[in-house]
């Protein structure tokens, strides 16, 4: 687990980062009011064509159809007073993307933040998904999208990222179901 500000390792659950003293309240001061955003896709840069926005919203809606507990949201922005890592972490907690009451272990949401001019992106998951996805899964999804992001094809990058995570999450659930079935068969051989 990393601090979204200094990217230092957080070995134990802590109310503030032991390296840079970051807290969510500090980010509230840094970023101010939560900007207007939609639940699925927000493009504050105007880089995505309207047609792509529609297609991506369909894709994100389809993701939510497959994983009813999870909402995958995407945020494109520019000129932040901090890094996109801090901003995405802050937005994941302060934004109203999905159900506002899904907190702690009930939060299975994902948020992809892209800062277009700084050419950086962050992918954050809710507490509920931490048991099922690790940071390597998220890194793989971002690495898959990096080629498209590098040529400023953000729509394709977002699509790749969503598709890679969809496959990974499907496999995680299937593996868990298989394990549960095997365990049940061992307990009750009949």
């Amino acid at each position, binding site marked *: *687990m*990393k*601090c*979204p500000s200094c*990217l230092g390792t*957080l070995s134990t*659950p*802590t*109310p*503030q*980062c032991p390296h840079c003293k*970051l*807290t*969510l*309240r500090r980010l509230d001061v840094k970023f101010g009011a939560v900007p207007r955003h939609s639940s699925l896709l927000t493009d504050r840069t105007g880089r995505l064509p309207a047609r792509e926005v529609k297609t991506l919203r*369909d*894709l994100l*809606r*389809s993701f939510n*159809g*497959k*994983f*009813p507990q*999870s909402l995958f949201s995407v945020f494109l922005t520019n000129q932040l007073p901090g890094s*996109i*890592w801090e901003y995405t*972490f802050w937005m*994941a*907690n302060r934004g109203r993307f999905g159900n506002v009451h899904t*907190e*702690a*272990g*009930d*939060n299975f949401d994902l*948020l992809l933040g892209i800062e277009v001019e700084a*050419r*950086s*992106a*962050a*992918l*954050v*998951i*809710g*507490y*509920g*998904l*931490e*048991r*099922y996805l690790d*940071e390597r899964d*998220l*890194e793989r*999804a*971002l690495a898959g999208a990096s080629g498209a*992001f*590098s*040529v*400023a094809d953000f729509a394709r990058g977002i699509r790749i990222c969503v598709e890679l995570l969809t496959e990974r999450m499907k496999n995680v*659930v299937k593996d*868990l179901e298989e394990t549960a079935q095997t365990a049940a068969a061992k307990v009750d051989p009949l």
Partner: protein
Amino acid sequence: MCLIGIGIVCFLITITHGFARTAGGMVAPADSFPPEPIALGWKIAMIAVVVSALGTGLYFSARRWRSSNLFDRQYRFAPVAQVALRLGGTKSGGSMATIVFVDRAANAESLKIRKPEETPPR
């Protein structure tokens, strides 16, 4: 959509059957003349209208079905009972991946611009 297409076809059939054109270009009720057969062009136009109406309907329905995951299964996770909150975040504790991507488009453009200058003279 389908109903609109059928409605248009019925309307066109009514028009073409209800009236006939006289030699002078005047329109007269069909009762005074035997009904003329529908022209091939009209038939093709009607079929085209119906097909395009059906196609449009199917396209939007397919999009809606796809995004609403109608024919695929749903995947659910077991909720996590106890979570130790981090950094004051109640929804996410900052479990994340980060990336800085190189702007290849800008790099390629700058290389193109620089290339003639950088070519050493023979």
